[in-house]
């Protein structure tokens, strides 16, 4: 039976049926909060769209045909087409032949590899085969404490390095990973594990501690004969080489399941405040409650923020690029960060925002976790031009997500100043999210250009998953002519065509805008966390320009970071 609200939403979407303001608000609220509902709706309209397209008659696109001279010449070159068809057929045969032999070779290697890996350990749960999946980044190594790697085939990431699915073998020391799903995992050697995905790890032996924020529930540690699934917050696992292990939940819940030979659960236990710790012996098929011994488990690796040190010529380089406004965050007198460009407005500090200082003397703004009141608001207004374009530049270092963090976090927004529509954005930079609740690729930067100002719509440009928590990144979002560009660490990370009517004479300028840093909307309050999207981390050297920067300027600015000074 179809959900009545789903039916109403479909009727509204497809049939111009207006259910009235109250019902509309209720539907929007559910769409925002209920991921399953949203996905169900998308599934329905997508299937309806496909059905409509495939069942409709083939269109004749006369303008397009005229433009490309397609239909007129299509029949003239039949011989060439024939040759191409033959070549294509031959090419495909060759590719298939090679593919078959390659697959056969890979299959043999996989079988041999699996046999060698499994033979001394007996049963291994399903999932082992996933090691061969595409090497997409799934985590970053945020801290290495006295780590010594086992020699061999395992990965040996450095601090700040990206982790792809694969094998990790530690002789000693402690490694802490920040997964793009939001999960933090510490591993202490000696340890041997395979990282399959952002929420699935296979452990042969070692000590593990995982913190799983809201939205990333389901993080699973597999071991020979059992698995531990986190249902939220924090657990530890000590797995001896012999197979016995201890699992303890420090906060929240986790489930432990013994697995049969086919990988299915044959018994289990729920760990929570009432039953905190168990010993798992897959050999005898037993899970026994044991007294909690938190000291026997490793602590979670503490996040250490790297300092930002900049060359003495950085400010000169920025000023040479003629910014409209430039805030260095070197002082916070009377709650104001001065503008380095004479006559331009300061940034007013809101909430408990404060400055921090590096050993080398550079200062930056610190926005702490779990405080949604923090932000900076420009004490004036600015109308970024559209015909020439504009740019927003800053340095950013994101924290690991706190328990209350929303997936997306706001960096800088420009909003039409009209007080009645104070949340109508003209431009917006944000980190596109960590965790599975957000639809965008995790740890990416998003730059949005929206004209005319509105609450929704506009043109987005996303980077790939390039923002590593704990590291400083140089970010520039700009409109350059008809293109929106996003630069991360001096390199073009993404671009999109700007809205096609942007060059109309009436759109040469925009409207006076407020500049808000560290939160999405000025007046939204908890629990509307999605409208606040509080930034947690550090920001520095914010500059806005009434013209786009050149790629050389951006690269030069990004390279003016110097190595941290020893404390």
């Amino acid at each position, binding site marked *: *039976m*179809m959900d009545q609200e*789903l*039916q109403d939403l*479909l*009727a*509204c979407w*497809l*049939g*111009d049926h*207006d259910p009235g303001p109250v019902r*509309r608000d209720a*539907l*929007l609220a559910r*769409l*925002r909060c209920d991921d399953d509902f*949203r*996905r169900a709706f*998308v*599934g*329905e*309209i*997508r*299937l*309806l769209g*496909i*059905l*409509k*397209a*495939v*069942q*409709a*008659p*083939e*269109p*004749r*696109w006369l*303008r*397009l045909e005229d*433009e*490309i*001279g*397609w239909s007129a010449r299509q029949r003239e070159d039949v011989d060439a*087409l*024939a040759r191409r*068809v*033959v070549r294509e057929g031959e090419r495909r045969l060759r590719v298939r032949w090679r593919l078959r032999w390659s697959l056969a070779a890979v299959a043999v290697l996989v079988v041999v590899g699996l046999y060698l890996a499994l033979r001394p350990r007996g049963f291994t749960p399903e999932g082992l085969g996933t090691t061969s999946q595409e090497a997409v980044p799934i985590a970053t190594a945020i801290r290495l404490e006295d780590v010594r790697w086992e020699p061999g085939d395992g990965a040996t990431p450095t601090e700040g390095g990206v982790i792809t699915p694969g094998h990790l073998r530690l002789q000693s020391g402690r490694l802490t990973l920040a997964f793009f799903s939001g999960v933090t995992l510490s591993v202490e050697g000696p340890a041997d594990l395979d990282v399959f995905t952002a929420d699935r790890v296979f452990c042969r032996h070692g000590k593990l501690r995982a913190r799983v924020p809201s939205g990333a529930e389901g993080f699973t540690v597999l071991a020979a004969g059992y698995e531990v699934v986190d249902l939220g917050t924090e657990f530890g696992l000590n797995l001896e080489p012999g197979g016995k292990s201890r699992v303890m939940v420090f906060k929240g819940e986790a489930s432990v399941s013994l697995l049969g030979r086919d990988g299915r659960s044959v018994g289990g236990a729920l760990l929570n405040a009432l039953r905190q710790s168990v010993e798992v012996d897959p050999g005898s098929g037993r899970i026994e409650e044991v007294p909690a011994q938190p000291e026997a488990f490793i602590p979670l690796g503490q996040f250490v923020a790297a300092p930002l040190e900049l060359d003495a010529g950085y400010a000169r380089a920025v000023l040479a690029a003629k910014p409209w406004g430039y805030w260095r965050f070197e002082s916070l007198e009377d709650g104001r960060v001065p503008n380095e460009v004479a006559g331009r407005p300061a940034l007013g500090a809101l909430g408990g925002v404060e400055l921090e200082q590096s050993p080398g003397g550079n200062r930056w703004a610190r926005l702490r976790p779990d405080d949604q009141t923090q932000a900076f608001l420009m004490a004036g207004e600015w109308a970024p031009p559209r015909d020439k374009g504009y740019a927003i530049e800053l340095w950013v270092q994101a924290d690991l997500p706190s328990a209350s963090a929303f997936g997306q976090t706001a960096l800088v927004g420009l909003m039409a100043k009209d007080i009645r529509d104070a949340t109508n954005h003209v431009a917006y930079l944000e980190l596109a999210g960590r965790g599975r609740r*957000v*639809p*965008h690729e995790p740890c990416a930067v998003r730059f949005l250009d929206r004209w005319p100002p*509105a*609450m*929704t*719509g506009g*043109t*987005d440009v996303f980077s790939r998953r390039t923002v590593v928590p704990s590291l400083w990144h140089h970010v520039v979002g700009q409109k350059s002519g008809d*293109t929106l560009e996003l630069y991360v660490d001096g390199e073009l990370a993404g*671009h999109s*065509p700007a809205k*096609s009517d942007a060059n109309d004479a009436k759109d040469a300028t925009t409207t006076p805008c407020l500049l808000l840093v560290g939160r999405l909307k000025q007046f939204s309050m908890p629990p509307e966390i999605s409208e606040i999207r509080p930034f947690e981390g550090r920001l520095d050297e914010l500059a806005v320009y009434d013209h786009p920067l050149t790629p050389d300027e951006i690269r030069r600015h990004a390279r003016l970071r110097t190595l941290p000074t020893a404390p």
Partner: protein
Amino acid sequence: MTVKERVNDKRAAKNTPRQSANLGRKPGAISHINYFAGFANFSLDFLEIFLGEAVRTPAAAANTYIEISQKWSLWSYGPMRDRSDVEAILDEVLRGQTEAFGQIVRDFALPLRSYLASQVHHVDDVDDLAQEVFLAALGNLSTFRRGDDFGAWLRGIARNKILVYFRTQSRRSQALKRFRDEVAALIEGDLERDAAGDSAEMMERLLRCVAHLPERLRRVVRAGLDGDKPAEVAKTLATTVGVVYNLHYRANQLLRECLRKEVE
């Protein structure tokens, strides 16, 4: 009688005048249903060519391919190409061979129209917007970044076109436009992620699945849920609009299940 002729006979017997009337919008146009029926015949032709019923030279085989393709309008939608193939075609277009863009249109038209049709009701508007998207893509081809997903780039242009389309529609109330904008923004990520997996092959499978639906569900699916369609179908089936929505919902569940089985 060849295998193809036998299949043709069966198809002709099933194609009632009413179906043909419903499907024919422009003179000479062929529906995708017929296209896929054509695809089946086309495959049979190739079986005949390559599996022994007709032994031919490669050139003759190619000519037959063209002949059959023209007959069944198979050039309408080709299989999705590799990214490198797409980029090779784009290079050709940028070198001035604009007619090569026709290959891109053939490859991406159906997924793009499906994407647009998930957000725009009237098929005519969907097709107009699709043409606009291809024209904009052609005009801005130099800004497409190599290595990116061309389909995603097209959908990005399509999003802008859809936005403008709804903003310029006078028959909708401001409140409804705002509501639509907000819904579109909320689902944008999910829709983009799902659409990235669409392919002409999947749509071909979907049509096969539609053919396996029970008659009542198939009628609902053929009609769609746009505008007044649910009310019309409800009247035809002597039931309520709510039931029509539920029938379509059930049909969609069966179609997804069928697609999964086809893949497995």
